[in-house]
């Protein structure tokens, strides 16, 4: 049957051929998708940011499961390429180079030197693009929190392309908070183009929102409805500005609260700086110009403590507080025993001598630590903010410092009121001779009091190290403010220091938005001068015979 076999063979061959072509076709499309992805990835090594932006869009829409880790690494700055063969890799920083993994295959490529690889650099434009690209990929993440963050990030740069994606996410979403965020994001997109009714409805959805990104979208709509805009755009702009105005009073209320918070937090800083001085100057009457340097020493103690425990930065402040108290307290006692003791009752000489001491301390720090500012690390639990809503967010470091300053204040008050040392201190400052004749060692009490005031200043320095630069000049910035607070609050009265600090802080912050920081400071100074003219003894003057002496 060879005759018959031939056509059969031919037919079979034809089928085989067809299958082969089909297979090749399928393989080719699959390959095409893969090589598209690879090509897009390859574009990331280009120098031009425009090309990279295209690449990000292509990677995000590729549907490839490797897209998300690659884009996330790019956003975090962990995506590198090998200089030699331009292979894209994930890199992990080591001591002397990087450990790299191929981004496409996941193959570990071992350790390389720092200069063997180069970072895929991004700019702010790309960061925004990445944020929404990653957002669109994470909209379907199983984790509800990731979905919420993704939905929110869709608001940053709402584009028409995202609409279909948002709709798809909305049908699948059941979590109410995520749904709300998705709907807002959808409204932000819809408000930009399409039929007028839908746009106005979308603006309606957004009105009343306390989200800054929504305000930004609304603000953009208002901006777009200028003179030359179309009739539709003008109407949308009108609706948008109405939507913005509807929350105006709420915004004003929250901004008032915010200013108050700023004022109180500035007051807390002033209180921490001044409360030590309230003891040495207020209670003992020593004009201690080296008080600022006690703050500085406290801040440097924090730095040294952090250097000594580099692996436990989170807890370093709890060690630094007692350490700073001991160090500055000891310096204070030394200062009292060696300099101030011989100058009691001679305020001018004390002023000059302590000023000299302050210069010596500054230069000593400069010699020991260098004139450069020292980096004091802020623990993670102190950074960031608590967002009440779009108009009001409270930064954690300020919240902690307000709480801390009040604790220090109350502790100091307790020492003065409830301990025998406090009793002796008050006795000595009220009537030294009488106290001495009752058997109190006045010299010893003087030293202890001065040490206590200095130690408290050191604790204040720990707090200041979290807010400002730790350098040799730290103290100078606070010495004037400290004296102002103490004089304003009333010499010799701790409650006066508290009220004085808070008043000055709040007044300063309420004036600042109108006049700027420089004039605000000047106005506060003028205010204090006038106030002292009227009430020379400050807010809470001590009464009684002791004062008249």
């Amino acid at each position, binding site marked *: 049957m060879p005759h018959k076999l031939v056509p059969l063979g031919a037919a079979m061959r034809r089928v085989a051929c067809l299958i082969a072509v089909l297979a090749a076709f399928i393989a080719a499309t699959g390959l095409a998708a893969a090589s598209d992805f690879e090509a897009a990835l390859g574009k990331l090594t280009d120098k031009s940011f425009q090309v990279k932006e295209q690449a990000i869009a292509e990677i995000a829409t590729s549907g490839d499961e490797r897209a998300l880790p690659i884009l996330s690494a790019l956003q975090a700055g962990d995506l590198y390429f090998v200089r030699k063969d331009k292979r894209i890799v994930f890199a992990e920083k080591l001591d002397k180079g990087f450990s790299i993994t191929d981004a496409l295959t996941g193959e570990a490529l071992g350790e390389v030197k720092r200069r063997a690889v180069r970072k895929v650099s991004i*700019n702010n434009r790309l960061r925004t693009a990445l944020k929404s690209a990653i957002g669109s990929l994470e909209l379907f993440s199983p984790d509800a929190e990731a979905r919420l963050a993704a939905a929110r990030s869709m608001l940053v740069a709402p584009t028409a392309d995202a609409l279909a994606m948002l709709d798809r996410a909305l049908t699948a979403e059941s979590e109410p908070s995520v749904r709300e965020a998705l709907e807002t994001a959808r409204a932000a997109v819809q408000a930009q183009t399409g039929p007028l009714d839908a746009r106005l409805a979308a603006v309606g959805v957004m009105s009343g929102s306390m989200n800054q990104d929504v305000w930004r979208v609304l603000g953009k*709509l208002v901006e777009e409805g200028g003179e030359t805009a179309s009739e539709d755009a003008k109407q949308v702009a009108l609706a948008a500005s109405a939507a913005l105005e509807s929350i105006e009073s709420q915004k004003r209320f929250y901004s008032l609260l915010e200013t108050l918070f700023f004022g109180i937090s*500035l007051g807390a800083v002033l209180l921490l700086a001044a409360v030590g001085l309230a003891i040495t100057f207020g209670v003992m009457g020593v004009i201690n110009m080296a008080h600022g340097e006690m703050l500085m020493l406290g801040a440097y103690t924090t730095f040294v403590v952090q250097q000594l425990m580099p692996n436990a930065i989170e807890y370093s402040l709890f060690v630094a507080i007692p350490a700073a108290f001991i160090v500055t307290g000891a310096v204070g006692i030394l200062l009292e025993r060696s300099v101030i003791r011989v100058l009691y009752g001679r305020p001018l000489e004390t002023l000059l001598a302590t000023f000299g001491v302050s210069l010596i301390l500054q230069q000593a720090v400069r010699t020991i630590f260098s004139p450069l500012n020292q980096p004091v690390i*802020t623990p993670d639990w102190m950074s*960031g903010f608590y967002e009440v809503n779009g108009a009001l967010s409270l930064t954690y470091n300020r919240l902690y410092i307000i709480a801390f300053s009040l604790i220090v204040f109350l502790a100091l008050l307790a020492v003065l009121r409830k301990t025998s040392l406090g009793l002796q201190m008050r006795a000595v400052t009220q009537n030294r001779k009488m106290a001495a004749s009752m058997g109190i060692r006045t010299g010893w009490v003087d030293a202890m009091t001065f040490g206590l005031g200095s130690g408290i200043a050191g604790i204040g320095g720990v707090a200041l190290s979290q807010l400002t*630069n730790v350098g040799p*000049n730290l103290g100078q910035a606070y010495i004037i403010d400290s004296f102002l607070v103490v004089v304003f609050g009333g010499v010799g009265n701790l409650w006066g220091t508290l009220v004085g600090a808070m008043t000055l802080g709040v007044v300063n*912050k309420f004036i600042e938005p109108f006049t700027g920081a420089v004039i605000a400071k000047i106005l506060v100074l003028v205010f204090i001068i006038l106030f002292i003219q009227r009430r020379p003894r400050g807010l809470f003057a001590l009464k009684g015979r002791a004062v008249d002496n």
Partner: protein
Amino acid sequence: MTQSGKRTSLIAAASVLALALGSTAAIAAETIKVGVLHSLSGTMAISETTLKDTVLMLVEEQNKKGGLLGKQLEAVVVDPASDWPLFAEKARELLEVHEVDVIFGNWTSVSRKSVLPVVEELNGMLFYPVQYEGEESSKNVFYTGAAPNQQAIPAVDYLLSEEGGSVRRFVLAGTDYVYPRTTNKILEQYLLDKGIPQDDIMINYTPFGHSEWQTIVSDIKEFGSAGVKTAVVSTINGDANVPFYKELGNQGIAASDIPVIAFSVGEEELSGIDTSPLVGHLAAWNYFMSAEADENDAFIEKWHAFIGDEDRVTNDPMEAHYIGFNMWVKAVESVGTTDVDVVREAMYGITYPNLTGGVAVMNTNHHLTKPVLIGEIQDDGQFETVWQTPKGVIGDAWTDFLPESKNLVADWTQPISCGNFNIKTGDCSGQNY
């Protein structure tokens, strides 16, 4: 080691010592003196100490190469202690008592203004390495830092461009003194010329060493939530930057929302803070430590070896001193004398490779031609260059964007030979700067 071994080494040591003593004696007799006028104490010590070390390194390096004109260089270091009038006294001391041939010094504009009358009276030569507000050209000063058109104007152009985010709303924040005030005046006029409405420009000044940034940062946040892309142009100087950036991070302002472009924040300033919340904020300079060039690698290596610390960074004013010093050396070698008037003539048109891979040129207005770089802060405290002018920009002593200096040019060669020549009226105001 044997007894005799010990003795030989002792003798060797003694002879080396004797030789060294002998040569110092020789040096003392025949040296070229280089004055260093940088604050080593006070507020500016943080920035200026590094520059003093840079000059010392350059001097040491030149001496290793055999000195200059067959003589050794000798650095004379004085400390003006961040005290502006003291700068003038110390400059006089350098010129009259130590009789230095050249001075490298100053950081703040106010200290430079204080030194000007002295170097002009005594005909000294000063190299000033820091970016400044312009509106000056002294016969006796070479300005190796950036003039406004080499830093501020390109930076704003970048922000206005599509690549920089098409910014249309600007906050000009600065420290309250002459450099920020003049720069912001120039920038405000420039932005108005570019069609940015007055309402979209917010100007804010703060004192030196300001640390209470809550209100201002919150105002910036508010200003930036109006739907138009907003950026901050910062001329905040010195260590006030650290709490400023900390507060930005704390209040959650990311660079992709409101970028901050700074003119006074370099690697040195960033070395005091954790930069991870600041990634993406910008700075405009003529040099970044991350620049990829062989000259730069060599310079960083030498710096680390000299200072003995691998963690120390390099920055833009250091590059300025590097260029200025080497240009001066080149000029002195070409004329064979350190006479100020002769060397000054030789400086014009002199070129030297800068550290970013190009070539710097000294112009007849005493300013350099240098490239302008925009860099983004990275999480390791370095900058990544994101934009760069295609070629060097010629420093302009008198800005074209202010009506009062529009018609002024500086040219210290014949026939003009004037620091502020009015091209409209054709006369020189007579003041030297």
